[in-house]
């Protein structure tokens, strides 16, 4: 077959495509070659088979169907190449129509193919046959599973035990769908993974700006400061890496704080490797430098910080002038010298001063970002984002080009078809009274709270979540999950086996990324977009004219997707509508019928996404058709500094302006189809809603904080008993050198590997082949005295047990600190499981003493995929998280991951992968950290459980916030109290 003739028909090259009037997608090489086929040909695109090439030019015809990657939180676009002959996916590439990922992906994107073809995946609903955790399963029908689970939930709801229904999610991958389901059920049953992840990061941002996430505009920055390894991991790896490198190539400077040599650190112009926990001290030293030298943006600080409120509350005797504040500000941070920061961090003071000078040179183009990292590692870690954002706040680099935005302005959550009311109950298992300021659910304390007799779970769902493996103290989770007195029925919604599913009652297979619907939007640059995840084979068959009514019809085996599952389950909970649940899952077009996913999303795309209907119409498509074809839609870009926007007159009725400038109005809030979560400051005493803030006489939109300004001073923290933390400050970590015994080191256990993602990527052979173990990083200065060489076994002792792992002796880590990636150490006991990346282990238990012994690593095996016979690696790493007790930060509720450990050469009885833990000891450590809290019942200023203005997933009604009346003796607390 002749190439020229072929090209006339199919070439994607510029001249050929443009000659046919089709889209040319320029690639990075900026030549005539395209990066993607013209979108006009996505129904029927011809490529040459790479395997037959060049001996035979075999033409393959594909349908290109967009979806969204589900391998991390970035939600990058994917294009599935669906073979028109076999109707199977041949490969996944990026989606050039996706504004966040712009057609590019990390390794995990194309590896999605491995996941859908994984020979070990779960294809049918399974029900436990033996004891919990025994590993015996029988296949059941979806009907049987749904009826059983629905009956339990219905009973719990009708008996007033609705909060015994809990949905525990790891990576949501969607905005709002499931929260809507729980609200419809009227249960406060949402539980997230966030407090083992980003609560520390969120808290620091939330107290500043009323929004709990940053959105750095790296691409336009002059200086980027990352307290993280965002070039290889994290929110949002690929979209941010693109933009960080873009800025670097344009001359921007990159500053990275990372105790170990990450791929990100290697690209830094300034790599700062501090002692873990000292990050805030360094950031304050930089702030102090900016303040001392007068290098900050005075006008911005004067206009946008709540300094007047600070002066009034803390220095009422002083004149309420900005100059007074500046004078006090200088005094506040005077002690944070570079020498002090150097002493705390171990980093050379001159290097810190260099960094400060670089930061000062950024002007308003300073993009900063931290998310987990130090914020998730340390007691008081939430002050890392608070002190980091202080730099933006000093330089006025807030929502500026090249600065850092509140994420809510770069995110769009369209309003769905029905909005059920807020649940009217409060779940004390997820929001315990000790943690009124926790940014998210105290999810990882669940086993301990249940052990304390605080409640019972009737139905416990886990979804894209594996607490036994992911959370600290997994053995306590096993104890909880196997105790039928604590958990009535546990349901693992998962596409693939995991350590938690092994202990479940039902394992219900849900689709991988390309086998399900989800809608999402993430802040990856200064703009707003939505991304649509869809089951690609379903979409492909619909394009071919087939009618698909249920995603199971096109998914492998009986694999389903959650959207349809929740709708069906809700119908079975309330079959006759008497509970008032069913109505939220009924079709509007066809009353009395179940709401179909098509209608759910069509409604959103038609009514809640500005510009989408017009754009779709321009292409002759319905809004849903447009999203099915392109997978993403950019609503706007260059949002800019919304806080500076004047509030329109229409919104200003009977305005009241508070002493510090907060403006309240009687005008109703104009309808907004974007329901992105934000802080919700309280109305004034007369019930007017906060609408803006008066700045220099003008009422501007401001920030969603109580003061309407950036809260340098958090009155919330003061009122709830934490006045010492009200300003950006440095709190000494639980792993501060002063807190360590002489023979202890700090273990960093949180770092990611660029090609893996928690427990979700073990079913990707291409990723497993690249990364399959997690040796302990240790500096030669620490290794040499123990005569440790790389590969030698070491025993790492934590507060509650130990694990045995191999050593990796490296110059890439600070002496005195060891590090072990949490992306490894998957295991299975016997029988079912993932065979490419799970070791087979035996679990032993004597009272509270648990032991895990590795029997064997992985080995080649026969399957439908010939590649499984070529597995050449044997090691899968060690599951260190089992040996960590819970460390809830008393304010943010974040689990503080860093561990004080003793590292010794392994003893004669130690074998690789050995783990030993005492869950009794774990419970004692929990009690010790619980004692650090300031419970609402003693510290609440207003008789509520939590400041109402703080964000909260599945926010309950206002009444539910009220603390139980203490005059009547409280019954033993139960869930739903």
């Amino acid at each position, binding site marked *: 077959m002749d*190439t020229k003739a072929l090209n006339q028909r199919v070439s994607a090259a510029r*001249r050929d495509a443009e000659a046919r009037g089709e889209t040319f997608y320029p690639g990075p090489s900026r030549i005539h070659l395209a990066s993607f086929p013209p979108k006009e040909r996505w129904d029927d695109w011809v490529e040459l088979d*790479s*395997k037959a090439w060049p001996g035979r030019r075999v033409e393959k015809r594909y349908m290109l169907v967009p979806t969204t990657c589900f391998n991390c939180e970035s939600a990058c676009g994917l294009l599935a190449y669906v073979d028109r002959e076999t109707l199977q996916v041949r490969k996944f590439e990026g989606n050039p129509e996706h504004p966040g990922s712009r057609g*590019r992906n990390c*390794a995990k994107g194309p590896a999605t193919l491995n996941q859908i073809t994984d020979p070990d995946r779960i294809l049918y609903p399974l029900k436990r046959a033996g004891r919990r955790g025994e590993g015996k399963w029988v296949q059941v029908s979806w009907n049987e599973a749904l009826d059983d689970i629905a009956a339990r939930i219905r009973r719990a709801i009708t008996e007033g035990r609705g909060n015994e229904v809990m949905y525990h999610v790891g990576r949501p991958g969607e905005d709002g769908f499931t929260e809507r389901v729980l609200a419809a059920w009227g249960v406060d049953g949402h539980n997230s993974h966030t407090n083992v992840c980003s609560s520390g990061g969120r808290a620091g941002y939330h107290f500043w700006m009323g929004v709990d996430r940053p959105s750095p505009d790296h691409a336009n920055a002059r200086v980027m400061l990352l307290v993280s390894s965002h070039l290889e991991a994290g929110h949002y790896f690929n979209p941010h890496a693109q933009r960080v490198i873009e800025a670097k190539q344009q001359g921007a400077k990159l500053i990275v704080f990372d105790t170990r040599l990450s791929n990100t650190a290697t690209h830094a112009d300034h790599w700062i490797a501090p002692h873990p926990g000292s990050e805030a001290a360094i950031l304050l030293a930089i702030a102090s430098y900016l303040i001392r030298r007068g290098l900050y943006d005075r006008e911005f600080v004067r206009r946008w910080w709540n300094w007047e409120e600070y002066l009034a509350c803390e220095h009422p005797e002083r004149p309420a002038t900005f100059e007074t504040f500046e004078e006090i500000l200088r005094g506040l941070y005077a002690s944070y010298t570079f020498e002090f920061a150097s002493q705390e961090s171990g980093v050379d003071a001159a290097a810190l001063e260099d960094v400060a000078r670089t930061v000062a040179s950024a002007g308003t183009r300073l993009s900063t970002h931290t998310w987990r990292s130090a914020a998730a590692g340390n007691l008081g870690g939430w002050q890392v984002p608070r002190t980091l954002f202080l730099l933006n706040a000093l330089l006025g680099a807030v929502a500026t080009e090249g600065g850092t935005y509140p994420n809510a302005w770069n995110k769009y959550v369209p309003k769905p078809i029905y909005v059920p009311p807020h649940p009217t109950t409060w779940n004390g298992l997820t929001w315990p009274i000790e943690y009124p300021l926790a940014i998210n659910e105290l999810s990882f304390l669940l086993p301990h709270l249940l052990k304390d007799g605080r409640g019972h779970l009737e139905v416990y769902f886990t979804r894209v979540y594996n607490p036994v493996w992911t959370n600290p103290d997994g053995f306590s989770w096993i104890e909880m999950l196997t105790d039928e007195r604590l958990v009535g029925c546990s349901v693992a919604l998962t596409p693939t086996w995991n350590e938690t599913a092994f202990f479940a009652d039902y394992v219900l297979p849900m689709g991988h990324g390309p086998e399900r619907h989800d809608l999402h939007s993430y802040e990856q640059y200064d703009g707003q977009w939505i991304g649509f995840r869809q089951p690609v084979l379903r979409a492909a068959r619909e394009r071919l004219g087939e009618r698909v009514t249920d995603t199971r019809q096109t998914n492998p085996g009986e694999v389903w997707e959650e959207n349809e599952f929740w709708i069906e389950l809700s119908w079975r909970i309330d079959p006759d509508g008497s509970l008032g649940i069913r109505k939220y899952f009924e079709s509007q077009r066809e009353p009395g019928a179940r709401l179909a996913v098509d209608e759910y999303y069509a409604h959103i795309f038609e009514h809640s996404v500005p510009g989408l209907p017009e754009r779709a119409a321009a292409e002759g498509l319905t809004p849903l058709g447009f999203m099915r074809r392109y997978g993403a839609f950019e609503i706007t870009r260059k949002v800019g500094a919304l806080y500076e926007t004047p509030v329109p007159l229409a919104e200003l009725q009977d305005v009241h302006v508070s002493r510090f400038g907060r403006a309240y109005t009687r005008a109703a809030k104009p309808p907004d189809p974007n329901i992105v979560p934000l802080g919700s400051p309280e109305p004034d005493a007369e019930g007017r809603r906060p609408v803006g803030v008066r700045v220099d006489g003008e009422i501007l939109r401001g920030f969603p904080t109580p003061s309407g300004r950036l809260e340098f001073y958090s009155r919330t923290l003061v009122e709830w008993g934490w006045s010492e933390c009200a300003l950006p400050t440095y709190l000494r970590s639980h792993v501060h050198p002063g807190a360590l015994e002489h023979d202890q080191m700090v273990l960093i256990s949180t770092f990611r590997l660029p090609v893996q993602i928690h427990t979700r990527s073990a079913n990707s052979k291409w990723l497993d*082949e690249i990364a399959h173990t997690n040796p302990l990083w240790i500096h030669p200065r620490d290794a040499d005295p123990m005569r440790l060489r790389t*590969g030698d076994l070491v025993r790492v002792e934590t507060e509650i047990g130990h694990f045995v792992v191999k050593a990796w002796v*490296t110059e890439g880590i600070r002496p005195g600190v060891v590090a072990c990636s949490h992306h490894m150490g998957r295991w299975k006991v016997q029988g079912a499981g993932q065979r490419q990346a799970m070791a087979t282990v035996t679990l032993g238990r004597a009272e509270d003493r648990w032991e895990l012994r590795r029997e064997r690593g992985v080995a080649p095996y026969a399957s439908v995929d010939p590649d499984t016979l070529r597995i050449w690696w044997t090691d899968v790493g060690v599951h260190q998280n089992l040996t960590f007790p819970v460390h809830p930060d008393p304010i943010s509720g974040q689990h503080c991951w860093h561990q004080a450990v003793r590292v010794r050469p392994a003893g004669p009885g130690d074998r690789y992968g050995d783990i030993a833990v005492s869950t009794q000891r774990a419970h004692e450590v929990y009690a010790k950290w619980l004692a650090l809290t300031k419970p609402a019942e003693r510290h609440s200023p207003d008789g509520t459980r939590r400041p109402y203005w703080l964000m909260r997933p599945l926010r309950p009604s206002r009444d539910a916030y009220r603390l139980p009346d203490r005059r009547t003796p409280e019954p033993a607390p139960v869930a739903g109290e």
Partner: protein
Amino acid sequence: MHPAVAKVDHIASGPTPRPAKWAKVIDHTRCVGCHACTVACKSENEVPLGVTRTYVKSVDVGVFPQARRAFQVTRCNQCDDAPCATACPTSAMFVRPDGIVDFDKSICIGCKACIAACPYDAIFINPEDHAAEKCNFCAHRLDVGLEPACVVVCPTEAILVGDLSDPTSRVAQIVHREPVTVRRPEKDTQPKLFYRGAHQATLDPLAARRPDGGLYMWSEQGTGPGDVPAGVAAPWNNTSAAALLSYDVPHTAPWHWRVSLYTWTKGIAAGTYLVLLGLLLGGVVSWSSALWVWVAPVVCGVALAATGGLLVADLKHPERFYLIFTRPQWGSWLVRGAFIIAAYSLVLALHFVGSLFGWRDLQRALGAPGAVLAVLCAVYTAYLFAQAKARDLWQNPLLPLHLLLQALIAGAAILLPFAGRLEPAAVPPLLGIVGAASLAHLLLVLGETTLPHGTAHARLAVREMTAGRFRTVFWTGVGLGALAVLVAAAVLGVLATPIAGSAAAVAALALVGLLAYEHAYVQAGQCVPLA
């Protein structure tokens, strides 16, 4: 030239009528080490586990807190002067007019000559289809107007493809305007893969120390027979900077025991004939001697058949061995060698026909071409090995002499037991040849192992041979060879007439020693990491 090439005279309607010259830039000032290229390539080209067309090597350089991780996207260099194409016997590896080194799996015989020849270890045998493959710039995509899969996937646009002849292409701009490097320019292959911002510690395969314990930063090194782990064991780094290999993939040597054994059987086949001709010309035996009439064609024939058998058996596609003859690529010494062997076997066959029919004149007339072919048969392997451009141990001008001496040792040794029975008078001269050739060979080996080497690669190979992985088999070979010399000398000098069995002992020592040495040499030549 491959038939497909003719049609690819014009790539995808490029913007210029100039002949295209495809090149790539890997920009390590942008690469964040995410391995997306590796996985996208596996997906696009359906590359099985255990092998890669491209991967991201990394080396941790420096001492805390001044340290960095240097990456190297490692793959085929698309050499303008591609040693793989030169070495390929069937043109399965070929250079397209636009500069892309492509391959046609349907005509690959799986001889691994390309793998041996590649100075970058960028070629492998696909375990599914048993044919050689490597990065081909996704030629099947270029030809329909698409960028390669790795270019498209890269989050940071660190991989660019472009036409060096087109000054407007970003590739040409970077290559011509910025400091770029290529891997191993001393190998004279003119790579068209240019690195921007690459570190010497990754470019030089011997710069980084291999970690202990069979481990990298997050993976195992992979161990198996024939593995060539990347990096070097301390303290042999080829740099004075601290450099630790933190990620690499398993590598294997292309040629295993069959090739070692083939050099030995081929030596017997060539040497037997040559030694006998020597005895004939020296008047030790007559043209009608059974040694010449029967032993020569039978022993040489059997050894040559074994040689051919081993060569065919070593092919990953043995059923396609005939392609060497039907579509020879004359630059390949594998082809030249095959024709030499074929011609030599023809001489031996005619010789045998002469034996059957008593045509002594024919046999005598065949002696001259037979001698030439036997010498060629013995020494062509030196040229074959020399086509392995980066196997520095094999880049030895004395290698033809080595091989010739080896053939003489083997030939004389194999003749000893026959002579003992058929031509006792020939035994002392044969012992003399074994002894003398072995001694000369040992002297060459001594020179080879004790003289300083011009390259770190050769030095490392010699070290692995004499003191490393192959030391046992090497010293066995040298020891037995030396013993053969001593015993032969003793037999000739002390005993007036050889006692029963002593000649056989010399023969056995010489042959086994030779085999051991050749194995050590062939394997040590391939044990130096190239990537």
